[in-house]
């Protein structure tokens, strides 16, 4: 308590800045969600509560697009989590001559604007004669998501005691067994967190998907093509649904992780 006192002097001011920032960050989305239940077709005059915009969302086309989004995101999560974990493990644990090259390969998409990532992949696909599809969307998203997964997993790998692995090796365990029985359980939380980050980034990704999607669309590209010129409350309803489902997904993943952790302790 004593230690905190000196710096507390400036804190009412700082606290109010923090509150203002939190409001600024969250208000637009909250406003959007409230007006998803607004009866009026004109965007921002409240005339009464309704669920009709949500009912309009239940069209076949919309449901198919939800399916596309989930398929793409789940593939991106699986691939980027596996590759990202391997990359993180290799980069933290081993030094090898091609290390700068691997670093560059993994981290270039993070230091390049996403539009250019999308266009460069588009040029490559064109060069190879691959037509645009959900697969190419997933490919582009994986490039973009991979560095984030790698960073998250690597941040956990650097914290654990390397001697645990060495001990297992000394006791005669094979490298793969060591990875599976010692390393993986220790970095499990990092891998989960990485997968979650991958899902959130991929599900909301728009710029790369826009340049790489063919006739089948994901949710953000559908939103762009449907509502670009005409904003209706339907977009509020759709956005609300997306936010709620993403949050449920996140909380669900967290609950599963905690139950697994409890199970492991017992």
């Amino acid at each position, binding site marked *: 308590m004593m*230690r*905190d006192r*000196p*710096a507390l*002097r400036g*804190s009412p001011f*700082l*606290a109010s*800045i*923090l509150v203002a*920032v*939190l409001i*600024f*960050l*969250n208000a*637009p*989305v909250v*406003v*959007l969600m409230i*007006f998803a239940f607004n009866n009026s077709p*004109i*965007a*921002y*005059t409240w005339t009464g509560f309704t669920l009709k915009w949500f009912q309009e969302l239940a069209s076949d086309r919309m449901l198919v697009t939800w399916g596309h989004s989930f398929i793409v995101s789940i593939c991106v999560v699986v691939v980027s989590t596996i590759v990202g974990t391997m990359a993180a493990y290799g980069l933290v644990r081993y030094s090898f001559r091609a290390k700068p090259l691997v670093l*560059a390969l993994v981290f*270039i*998409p993070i*230091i*390049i*604007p*996403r*539009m*250019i*990532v999308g*266009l*460069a*992949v*588009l*040029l*490559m696909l064109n*060069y190879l004669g691959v037509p645009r599809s959900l697969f190419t969307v997933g490919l582009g998203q994986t490039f973009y998501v991979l560095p984030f997964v790698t960073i998250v997993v690597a941040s956990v790998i650097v914290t654990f005691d390397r001697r645990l692995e060495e001990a297992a090796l000394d006791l005669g365990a094979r490298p793969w067994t060591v990875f599976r029985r010692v390393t993986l359980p220790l970095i499990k939380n990092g891998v989960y967190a990485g997968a979650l980050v991958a899902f*959130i980034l991929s*599900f*909301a990704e*728009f*710029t790369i998907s*826009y340049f790489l999607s063919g006739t089948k669309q994901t*949710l*953000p590209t559908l*939103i*762009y093509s449907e*509502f670009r010129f005409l*904003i209706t409350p339907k*977009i509020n309803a759709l*956005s609300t649904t*997306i*936010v709620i489902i*993403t*949050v449920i997904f*996140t909380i669900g993943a967290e609950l599963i992780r905690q139950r697994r952790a409890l199970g492991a302790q017992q």
Partner: protein
Amino acid sequence: MLGPLTIMVVYSLWRVENFSVVQNVSFDNYAYLIGSPIYIWLTAKALLYGAIVTIVTLIISVPVAYFMARHIGPRKGLVVTAILLPLYTSELIRYFAWRTILGTEGMLNGALLRLSVISEPIEMLSFSPVAVIISLVHVYLPFMILAIWVALEALDPALLDAAMDLGARPIRMFGKIVLPLAMPGIIAGVLFVFIPVTGEFFGVNMMGGTTGFTITNAINDQFTSAFNWPLGSALSYMLLLSIGVVVAVFLVIVSRLRMVRNYVGREV
């Protein structure tokens, strides 16, 4: 990613004649770009947006990150979640949200009219550089706050107490202790914000209308309507190169700052 980027370099050296790509290697595209004031101005505009948004987010983030690292103990998880929450929604949806808030018939104008603060809707709010900057700050602020916060978490409160006991004034303490420690986070945050904002396409396009036109719109036009992919590739590399130059200059300046030199020196 190296593959696609290499193909892009190759494309940028080709040419379009009679609506088809001619695979003759030349630097004509680049020569053309250097000689055209429009493309140079559009690139400068993109860099300007990048710089403004970076500076605004930096000014907001330093006090917020400091407060988070120092003063909120048990509620930290909650605050971090509240900062991350907007990231769960696609940036596209957030641009739509800002468009309806800032639009001529939008919420803000409506509220101001009702409160009689203004008598006519402010046209400036929508499709203006101000709208672009507000919405881009909104989208990229979480990255800056988190980067600086992570760096400041390492700040030992005892350092500040010691400085206080020795009679240092808050501003001096901030300059001598907090800022140097925050520097790695600030550098990371600046890169995380400046690069994507400079290369932002949909944000400037949707929020700025014609005033928001930057080099990214020109790149998009070459790829989607003019079908001059070689020129589009050359434009992309012009953008990447100018971002690279600005980032390099920034890093050189930062590494010469006395506080960073002192800090690094002490570590070694």
